[in-house]
């Protein structure tokens, strides 16, 4: 231990701890406050929760729901849809009877419907739709 005045030693240590903790917490409070008061975009989790709230009961009758997308961030949306429709199981691909299609490109969507003999059941949002397989 250094040979310093005990008061100075304690002041240095406690003061340093206090200042670091103060700066860190104050900085985060300001950031959160700015975000809180600023123009917030709607949370994607809440958005999908709202969009699928009505559909959940209907989807549960199908047991499993497929998911197909041309979106770049498809994985994230897939997980969030699973979160929104739980306990309905969402699987990637076209195997289930009910399929959620998420297409940014409308031409790709049309092609997808034609190729897979699907029927539009419900439009969820601009890109996302629920289809069921037409009886062959």
């Amino acid at each position: 231990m250094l040979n310093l005045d005990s008061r100075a030693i304690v002041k240095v240590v406690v003061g340093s701890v206090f200042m670091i903790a103060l700066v860190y917490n104050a900085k985060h409070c300001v950031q959160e406050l700015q975000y809180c008061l600023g123009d917030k975009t709607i949370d994607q989790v809440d958005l999908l929760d709202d969009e699928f709230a009505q559909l959940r009961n209907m989807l549960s009758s199908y047991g499993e729901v497929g998911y197909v997308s041309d979106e770049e961030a498809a994985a994230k949306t897939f997980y969030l849809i699973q979160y929104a429709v739980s306990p309905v199981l969402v699987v990637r691909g076209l195997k289930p009877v009910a399929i959620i299609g998420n297409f940014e490109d409308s031409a790709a969507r049309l092609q997808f419907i034609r190729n897979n003999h699907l029927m539009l059941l419900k439009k969820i949002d601009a890109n996302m739709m629920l289809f069921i397989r037409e009886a062959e």
Partner: protein
Amino acid sequence: MFLCLSIFLPWFTAYFIICYLWPDLKRSGAQALMRGSLAIGMGFGISSCLFFVCLLFVGSHPDLSFVIDLSIFISSGCLFLYKVRKKDIRIGLKPEKKVSMKFHRPSLMLAGFYVICTLAITFFILNSVNESNGTWDAIAIWNMRARFLFRGGDKWTEAFSNLYAWSHPDYPLLIPGNVARIWTYVGHETTLAPIVLAFLFTFATVALMVSAIAYLRSSSQGLIAGMVLMGTSFFISHGNGQSADVPLGYFILAAVILFCLHDAAAGRGLQLLVFFSGMMAGFAAWTKNEGLLFIVSLIAARFLVTIPRKGWRSYREEMLFFIAGLLPILIIVAYFKTQIAPPNDLLSGQGFNSMMHKITDATRYAVIGKAFISKLLTLMKAMIFIFPLCLVLFGCSHEKKNHSGMVMPLFVLCFMLSGYFMIFLITPNDLIWHLNTALQRLFLQLLPVSLFAFFLGIATPEEVTWRCGI
């Protein structure tokens, strides 16, 4: 109303149980704070286990959870009142007398602590308002599992299908079980449930550490430790993320503290604290898989500490009480792991040869070691400088019992870090990706117990003042 009930029933039940079984000789603020913060973990641990057992045997039944919680609350409340009326004061825990040391201006330090605490709480609340659904882990793992338990009805076990491998369906249910239990009380889903749980576990960790260090060392030392914990950049920001790492860190800290308190009351027969420690270790395993590693680490650390000092007999007796607290929870964890959850993704699906190849690959050791050091420095930010500063200016405590008290948590830390190192070594995932996504959370789990060990070992402001003869 029902949200409050769902929180306070288990909390107060555990508080009554702790007060009944752990009577005090001298009432102090630190002891009350310690009991209150221990009761949070114990209460939510017990209630999630009961909720899971009810789901298993009775299925989803909204009123049953409330009836069970209420009956346990009333029973424990009656026992507590009986104890209070009888004024049955038996044995205390207060460590032996302390050298008379006075510290100047403790009230100024207390004011500083309150300022930091207020800011940390404000940050937590504002962040929870802005991101009420929590971090990605909270959404994809913990809250999604809670939705399955709440919405699933009789099909709740479908949450543990291998089809959800991306969501780690083998993770245990302390957090999702509690969130689903609160939703059951309230009757609908609300983001308040995971937020309140996250808040309680985050600040119970702070309260537990402050009170335990205040109890074992000094109040001012406890306040410094609390400020360091709240000022460590990633503790509060992960706490409000609603993930399970802060609750796991809480249970690790609680189990270690209870053993330290037991050691501080040497020879006074408080084996009950070891029983509580066993419970807390069990709840750690019921929170996250790393809790199982913690149980092994704690048993091994106690072996290394107790055998040379007190011998086999003492260790055996200690372990009997520890296992008595641990076993009921471990049975639930074992049932979940073997009957409901799919195999763990890190251990299953890789052969012996593949593991041996990774273990003998020297470059992996270097990559992991480098990542450990750089991540620690990045996460602690400016607070990292406090540790050498304290060591140089305060020095180590001259009291021998503080050194021995610090040894056990240090052994636990070494074993846990070695375990984490081994997991990274044999991971089937891409090593860099795994280190980048997991290491931060693993350090977070060990942060409270690391700070506890550190502040147990260094000199207190009182000792510094006393040494300098003022």
